[in-house]
């Protein structure tokens, strides 16, 4: 097992320390403290109640559904659900914040410590501590592009319920951070507490990043705000860590500050320094009573949870013999475990998983399509793997067939038949091709005889080429070895 990625600077190796604060929009029909709708894409200010606009005399009333979803998420994270929590006012002025304060949870969050296990491609696992999960209101949005002089305010988002999920600084490189965010998204989707849609802003992350010499005390951190895709998160963390290394190696100090990531230029820029940080003057919101949860309610919510990604992952490893990484990648997509189980009926699960993770996800990613819109069905992918397993086609041919399946949606059998790709199993035909190859390359034959047995592989390649890849590679290997060794003895 190898470790996390490090940055090698001019003066040596640097380790990253990363913590994430994820803001997940709670999947509810109405807002956290008002009855206004939460649907995405409405006309500006079409979903604003008197409470959201902070009209004088208006009072917040907690949305029970949002509380339930936060509790379910906490339970899914294996975290402690606090029987007593408090909503606080976080005070600051901004035109998108009508009340002049955000209702959040500061000293007493609804969910306490939990953890999330993240599997990496090299087989490494990282158990990331969850510090807390709390409920808070989202702010509205400023619109600056209507005309040159005025700004406009859209309060549709104002008051939408968010869960802020804060990790401990347990992540050690950008790939772990990306894997953590994907895993968390899968968990939220499985629980149904957030749709995980990053393009629509339902899920966004702030990353706290610092660098240090391996094993040294923590360095000064910077916070990168509002990262709205896994790719940007990873790139932002990497580029920010490299910036910090460069700053330190130039003999300067990293300043604690908030930064923004610019994806166009792939750089982070300072937004405000610690000195400018607000004093939010948190205090318990006197309009709301403390939130008290009964055991019965918590148990009812626990019973409402579906099979969670971690359990599915365990099952995929146990029942199908998948690698922890492949299993993790599958559970990161809500529909993927079902797809996998359908495709692997009667096949080697490990091979099917590998095909999904490597080829199918790769192609979908390139085409920018979700699994639900895959042109290759679970059945078709299963049939393709079946054709490999019964020797009809080789892995290499299968990749070509898959490419055509993805393009046309045709079944693997019809492609194999139409293009005559069926694998050559006939030993006479293979022997003939071998003889031709040996006769045409006396030099290489000589090398083999002189003991350079590596040339065997080269001859396999020649035979495969001569048969346009259709010869059974295992058969070619065996026949060739037999022929060369017999030849050598004679």
């Amino acid at each position, binding site marked *: 097992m190898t470790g996390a990625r490090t940055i090698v600077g001019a003066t040596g190796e640097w380790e990253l320390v990363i913590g994430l604060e994820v803001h997940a929009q709670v999947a509810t029909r109405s807002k956290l403290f008002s009855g206004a709708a939460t649907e995405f894409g409405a006309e500006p200010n079409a979903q604003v109640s*008197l409470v959201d*606009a*902070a*009209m*004088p*005399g*208006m*009072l*917040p*009333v*907690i949305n029970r559904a949002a509380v339930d979803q936060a509790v379910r998420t906490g339970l899914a994270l294996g975290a402690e659900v606090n029987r007593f929590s408090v909503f606080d*006012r976080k*005070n600051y*002025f*901004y*035109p998108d914040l*009508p*009340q*002049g*304060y955000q209702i959040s949870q500061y000293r007493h969050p609804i969910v306490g410590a939990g953890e999330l296990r993240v599997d990496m491609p090299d087989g490494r696992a990282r158990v990331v501590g969850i510090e807390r999960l709390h409920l808070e209101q989202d702010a509205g949005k400023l619109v600056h592009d209507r005309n040159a002089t005025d*700004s406009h*305010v859209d309060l549709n988002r104002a008051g939408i319920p968010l869960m802020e999920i804060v990790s401990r600084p347990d992540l050690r490189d950008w790939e772990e951070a990306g894997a953590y965010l994907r895993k968390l998204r899968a968990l939220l989707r499985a629980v149904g507490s957030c749709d995980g849609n990053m393009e629509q802003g339902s899920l966004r992350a702030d990353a706290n990043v610092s660098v240090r010499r391996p094993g040294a005390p923590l360095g000064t951190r910077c916070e990168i705000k509002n990262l709205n895709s896994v790719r940007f998160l990873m790139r932002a963390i990497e580029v920010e860590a490299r910036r910090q290394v460069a700053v330190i190696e130039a003999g300067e100090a990293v300043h604690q500050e908030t930064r923004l990531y610019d994806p166009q230029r792939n750089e982070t820029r300072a937004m405000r320094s610690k000195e400018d940080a607000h*004093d939010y*003057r*948190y*205090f318990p919101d*006197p*309009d*709301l*009573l403390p939130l008290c949860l009964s055991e019965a309610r918590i148990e009812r919510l626990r019973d409402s949870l579906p099979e969670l990604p971690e359990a599915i992952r365990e099952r995929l490893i146990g029942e199908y013999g998948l690698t922890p990484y492949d299993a993790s990648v599958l559970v990161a997509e809500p529909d993927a475990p079902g797809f996998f189980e359908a495709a692997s009926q009667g096949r080697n699960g490990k091979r099917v998983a590998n095909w999904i993770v490597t080829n199918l996800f790769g192609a979908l990613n390139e085409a920018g399509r979700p699994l639900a819109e895959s042109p290759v069905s679970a059945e078709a992918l299963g049939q393709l793997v079946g054709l490999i397993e019964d020797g009809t086609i080789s892995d290499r041919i299968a990749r070509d067939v898959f490419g055509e399946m993805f393009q046309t949606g045709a079944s693997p059998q019809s492609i194999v038949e139409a293009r005559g790709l069926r694998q050559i199993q006939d030993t006479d035909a293979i022997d003939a091709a071998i003889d031709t190859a040996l006769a045409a390359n006396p030099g290489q034959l000589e090398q083999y005889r002189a003991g350079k047995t590596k040339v065997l592989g080269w001859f396999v390649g020649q035979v495969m080429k001569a048969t346009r890849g259709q010869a059974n590679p295992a058969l070619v290997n065996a026949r060739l070895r037999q022929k060369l060794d017999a030849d050598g003895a004679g």
Partner: protein
Amino acid sequence: MPSDLHRLGVAEATARLAAGDCSAVELVEACIAAQEAAAGLNAVVTDTAEQARTAARHADQRRQRNEARPLEGIPVAVKDIFCTRGVATTAGSRILDGFVPAYESTVGAKLWDAGAILLGKTNMDEFAMGSSNETSRWGPVRNPWSPADGPALVPGGSSGGSAAIVAARAVPAALGTDTGGSIRQPASFCGVVGLKPTYGRCSRWGIIAFASSLDQAGPLTRSVADAALILQHIAGFDPKDSTSADLPVPDLHSALQGDVKGLRVGIPAEYRLDTLPVAVGDLWERGIAWFRAAGAELSDVSLPHTRYALPAYYIVAPAEASANLARYDGVRFGRRSTGEDPDDLYTRTRREGFGEEVRRRIMIGGYVLSEGYYDAYYLRAQQVRTRIAEDFQAAFREVDVLLTPTAPSSAFPQGAKTDDPLAMYVNDIFTVPASLAGLPAISIPAGLDDERLPLGLQLIGRAFDEATLLQAAAALEAAVGTVPSPAGSA
């Protein structure tokens, strides 16, 4: 046809209307005329005569159809802190210039649903911050007890306009709000009954917030029975106010019957201040004697943390106010000053829109909540609040109600204390403890001092035991006998 209908109380007027002795139109016209005659008091800031006339005609029609509701045709003046649909609502502040709510407060809506008629929005200290009605953007209110040949006296505050207009016999009842004494102290200064219900008894929805954990709506009337009648119709659980109590409202009218034989009345030792004027101390002694004569059991009790109540109040209330008033930013409603950018807009709007006392309290509130001071001020004040509530709980194990003076003096001249905020704050010394503990309390006009100015006595009851409180208040009222009308009344 000039009548004395405007001098009728709620119960008497209801009886006259029911008997057909007068119409709602006549009653309302009499009150409109009386309010016009009392215009010099500056007690009413928004005249609603026209809509009241229309409502009175509807009330008479309903009565003719035998559909009269309990308060059908009774005019009620409402403090300008209650949002009234279609009627300007300013909370005594320039910052709400031009604000016309599209909604009615729950308490107001309940009154109108019971048949009452809005007649006048009354003057008040800006955002209810004051004890003399001198911080209003509409200018000070003249106490109707002001001597014709002497200085204009304050009516108390913050519900100064409501107290003055009821005292002037220009409306049978008015609504006020009480945060630290804002109903009881002006009631005492103006010689009327002022009732602050238990915190949570009446909904705060639609009432412009000053200090959310203390604000409570209540009636100002000229009799205990009328106060009970109004409370009966404004009390009750409101799902739109999370802090309103989901408890049944007792039948308060029947609670007024019966005597106080055996009622245990406590006299808190800590309220016997050395600085108490002789007239106030004498009146208190008279009150004790009246209760004793009526068969009540008098005993001394101790509320040891009383001396910390005023400082704790002047930390908690400004803290909450500093956040509650953040929404007045000029962005969505009310006054907006022009600014270069959002920060400039806020600064100008708030500096020009808020008066000096409001700005002072916002700054105090911001200070006590700020990092490094929170524990020493806000948290400590909340701890004091708990101790004060415990003091009352202990006392109420021994007694049923507490008897104290309402205010440490009678009405003082306008301008006498405006330069000394602390001297002004001391007006609340006897009313603030019950506010901090959330207890119901009532001020009863109990006599006149040497200058022939009214003085009130305060009764404090157990939480949600308004029934016993009103019973004791009715007994005290009967013992006091007839209280003269002010010279400045209609």
